[in-house]
């Protein structure tokens, strides 16, 4: 049973656009896709520009957090050292971990996706260029401000996982924890925006013929990566919302003596935190899966098994979170579940490692710098995996927990599993963007120093931990047997830094972005090595194998000569071919947005809203929030252009330029957004039920609950809202949408939704419930907060749809704006009803 079946239409081939192409076609492509010059580049949206900025920013955060790592090591070099004070040390290790995880690792792999995916898939750009640019600028502004808190001594200091009660108001009265909660919560929103872009891009903008079975492994990993973000990040976003509500308004979610529970934070955090490790690792593994076949000169062994392994790891990793909580007193059998799942996930991870080894064995590996980093990755990550299986065993973990053994383990996994592949990737893909490749000589120095330095720094930490040194201590007494090992670790860390420095020298000397690139110097087989321009490839190829450049030697020439699909701009705008999700057959031509400023303003003001809120400048924050909404509306106004005549892309294929319903990419993005919202709400429901299991005694009995008349009235209003949604929907399908009736239905329907929520809120309030009273009460009001969030989004979209309909930009045909509103509106109604069933029904169900 061969996994590789890639014979396409062999023999003579008719190209879609065989004739010579008119000279002005190329020129118009170049003008349409030209990037703004000079400082205006900030308004650019092209994925190449955005990808470069994204990666550069992520790398900057790697350097900054790396310097913090060095400071930590300096402080710990000798016992009783007084280089850093305790509070400074706490801020520094917290920022080191937080910045590495949230501002470096996740954004860096997302950046690689944004930079490489369109080229790899044969798309001209990602489907929502301005969304990608928005995510970038939000991250740049938010991240830099967050980092600067360190210089003012107000950085968070509760560790990167921010456990309450330490991070609650009582023990962290300063503003540091708020910076973490609002800053990181906000950056997660930007990561989700990127994930939506990546999912839709991978599933719907592949070159014709690039079926799921022919998609490059990096695209598969990016798909799994983005899918995991959709389900994992909402849990931590919910956790940050709850903790911030507790800190700001004294709603006691995590305060045990008032019916909350600090462990709830740990559950929510690690439901995100463990998958996050794989969110970081899987794309890095995908990069390795691209590099290994090229360097070995042979197709990847076990492509299908790797796809299986990716999906399995991505799913099983959601069942591991409690292994971070083995010492918290959870019942033995439950611990068994998580311990077993932690070991089961090693099976698919092992499959990947064996596939790489088999590929290396079946070809002949060229020992280039990328190969060296890959080998370094294999060795270090495997070691980290082994210590991982060790700490997955409960008795061992009870010994090693919170010691330097864990610090060693986590760096072997993260540095080995993500930083080594990233360096390999940078060396490997630079020739696709730069006039010159990076230097093999300097690269070897960089690798040697990083590899040796890493092991000298972190290998001894296993022992330091086993002989008792706890993590997160700013100093230690002499004579515990830790002195020598710590000194060695510090020397190693500086050697590692020297290696990173060698890389920087190499990069600065040789990296020259250019339209004339060094090109396919490794003889790779995938599409990103075709001649690449700001508009992607000149024409869009039809794909019939997994390594098209290997199986079709003429491909580069024909693509560049414009002999494949769409060698021009068919509509005079930026555009990309949208294909079906499984078989990648062309469905329509999507017009993409051009550079602009509104999304940049939206990013800055959104960041401003969160950051100003942190320092309690509420009025300014509100103004910034309003400006953010205004900017988003301005940005969205140009989107969804009117349909035009169908266009010919060559090869006898004529495509419509507009789509609505499940074919359109807007619909897909909205559905994914709803999955995000649903994951957030499921996390909430878990939290609600969880608090009941730990503190049922603080729950109200029947008499204290609101009577049923108001909740039933509220439900009635929600059903009325649903009826108006259906009304508006059926009107929208008429040839001539009756304007006033349509707008009234949207307007009153939204009001009914808001009214229903308000009435429900009133019911609880009148029953005498106050959010500060108990964990239970806080949870009830948190439900309202979540519902109002969605309802606010529905309200803004409804106003937008009404405005578009007045401006004649919303018709029965040009209807994506309404379809998206309808989806979210319907979702909001269902979630509100569910919330009412939960908050009114559940206490009655279990109550006395």
């Amino acid at each position, binding site marked *: 049973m061969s996994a590789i079946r890639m014979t396409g239409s062999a023999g003579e081939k008719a190209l879609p656009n065989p004739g010579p192409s008119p000279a002005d076609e190329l020129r118009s492509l170049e003008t349409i896709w030209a990037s703004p010059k000079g400082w205006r580049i900030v308004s650019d949206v092209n994925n190449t520009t955005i990808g470069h900025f994204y990666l550069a920013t992520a790398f900057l955060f790697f350097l900054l957090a790396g310097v913090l790592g060095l400071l930590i090591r300096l402080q710990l070099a000798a016992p009783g050292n007084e280089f850093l004070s305790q509070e400074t040390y706490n801020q520094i290790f917290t920022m080191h971990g937080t910045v590495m995880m949230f501002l470096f690792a996740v954004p860096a792999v997302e950046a690689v996706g944004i930079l490489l995916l369109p080229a790899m898939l044969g798309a001209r750009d990602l489907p929502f260029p301005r969304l990608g640019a928005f995510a970038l600028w939000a991250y740049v502004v938010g991240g830099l401000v967050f980092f600067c808190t360190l210089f003012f001594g107000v950085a968070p200091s509760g560790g990167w996982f921010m456990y309450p009660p330490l991070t609650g108001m009582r023990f962290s009265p300063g503003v540091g924890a708020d910076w973490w909660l609002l800053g990181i919560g906000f950056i997660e929103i930007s990561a989700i925006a990127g994930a939506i872009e990546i999912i839709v891009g991978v599933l719907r903008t592949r070159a014709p013929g690039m079926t799921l079975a022919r998609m490059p492994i990096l695209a598969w990993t990016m798909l799994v990566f983005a899918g995991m973000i959709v389900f994992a990040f909402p849990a931590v976003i919910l956790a940050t919302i709850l903790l911030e509500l507790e800190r700001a308004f004294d709603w006691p979610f995590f305060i045990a003596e008032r019916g909350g529970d600090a462990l709830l934070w740990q559950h929510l955090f690690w439901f995100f935190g463990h998958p996050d490790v794989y969110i970081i690792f899987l794309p890095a593994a995908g990069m390795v899966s691209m590099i290994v076949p090229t360097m070995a000169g042979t197709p990847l062994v076990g492509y299908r098994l790797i796809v299986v392994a990716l999906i399995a790891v991505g799913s099983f990793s959601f069942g591991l979170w409690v292994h971070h909580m083995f010492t918290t007193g959870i019942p033995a059998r439950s611990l068994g579940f998580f311990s077993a799942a932690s070991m089961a996930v090693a*099976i698919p991870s092992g499959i990947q490692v064996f596939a790489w080894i088999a590929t290396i064995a079946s070809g002949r590996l060229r020992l280039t710098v990328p190969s060296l980093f890959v080998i370094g990755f294999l060795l270090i990550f495997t070691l980290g995996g082994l210590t991982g299986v060790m700490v997955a065993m409960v008795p061992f973990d009870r010994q090693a927990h919170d010691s330097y053994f864990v610090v060693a383990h986590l760096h072997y996994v993260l540095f080995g599993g993500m930083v080594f592949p990233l360096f390999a990737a940078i060396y490997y893909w630079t020739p696709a963007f730069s006039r010159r490749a990076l230097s093999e000589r300097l690269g070897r120095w960089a690798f040697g120093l990083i590899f040796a330095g890493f092991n000298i720094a972190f290998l001894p930490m296993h022992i330091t931990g086993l002989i008792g040194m706890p993590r997160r201590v700013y100093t230690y007494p002499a004579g515990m047997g830790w002195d020598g090992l710590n000194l060695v670790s510090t020397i190693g860390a500086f050697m590692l830094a020297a290696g990173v420095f060698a890389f920087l020298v190499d990069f600065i000397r040789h990296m020259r972005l250019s339209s004339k690139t060094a090109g396919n110097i490794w003889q790779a087989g995938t599409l990103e090595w075709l001649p690449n321009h700001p508009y992607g490839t000149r024409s869009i190829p039809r794909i019939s194998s997994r390594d098209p450049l290997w199986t079709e030697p003429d491909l580069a020439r024909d693509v560049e000569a414009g002999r494949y699909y769409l060698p021009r701009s068919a509509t005079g705008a930026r555009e990309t071919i949208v294909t079906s999700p499984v078989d990648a057959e062309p469905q329509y031509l999507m017009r993409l947005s051009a550079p602009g400023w509104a999304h940049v303003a939206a990013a800055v003001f959104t960041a401003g809203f969160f950051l100003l809120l942190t320092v309690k400048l509420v009025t300014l924050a509100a103004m910034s929030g309003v400006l953010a909404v205004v900017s988003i509306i301005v940005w969205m106004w140009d989107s969804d252009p009117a349909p035009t005549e169908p266009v010919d892309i060559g090869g006898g294929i004529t495509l419509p330029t507009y789509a609505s319903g499940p074919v359109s990419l807007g619909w897909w993005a909205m559905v994914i957004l709803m999955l995000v919202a649903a994951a957030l709400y499921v996390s909430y429901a878990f939290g609600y039920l969880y608090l009941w299991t730990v503190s049922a005694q603080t729950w109200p009995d029947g008499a204290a609950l609101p009577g049923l008349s108001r909740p039933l009235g509220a439900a009635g209003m929600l059903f009325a809202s649903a009826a108006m949604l259906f009304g508006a929907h059926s009107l929208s399908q008429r040839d001539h949408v009756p304007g006033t009736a349509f707008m009234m239905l949207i307007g009153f329907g939204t009001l009914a939704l808001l009214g229903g929520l308000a009435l429900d809120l009133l019911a609880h309030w009148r029953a005498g419930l106050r959010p500060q009273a108990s964990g239970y009460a806080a949870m009830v009001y948190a439900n309202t907060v979540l519902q109002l969030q969605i309802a606010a989004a529905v309200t803004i979209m409804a106003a937008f749809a009404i405005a578009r309909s007045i401006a004649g930009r919303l018709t029965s045909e040009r209807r994506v704006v309404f379809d998206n509103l309808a989806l979210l509106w319907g979702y909001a109604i269902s979630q509100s009803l569910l919330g009412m069933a939960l908050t009114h029904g559940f206490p009655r169900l279990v109550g006395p």
Partner: protein
Amino acid sequence: MTSWRSPAGRGLSILFGPTVWALHFIVVYAAESLLCRTAGGDSHGILLASATVLAIVALGCHLRVEGRRLGEEGTARFLAGVAIALDGLSGIALLFVAGAGLALPACTGAMT
């Protein structure tokens, strides 16, 4: 319009195994704290065993459906292969979890 529907359905079908795994995991884990509070440890053992049998049966049925698709061509065949392997891996992971659970007593441990 209609052409994408069924292939997309097949794309989603590869997630069947992992979904069953996740549901089984959630049910047996969540049930422990709930049942221990109300009905006692034995009932959790019964639940664990029956959920496991049910999940394995579900995986088996899905595996048979996908097995028939192995005879098809191209992408459909590829996806069937992926789905089958995922059913298998999910089954193994699920038995791991159930085995560890049955080996340990319910409703005991540090929790007071």
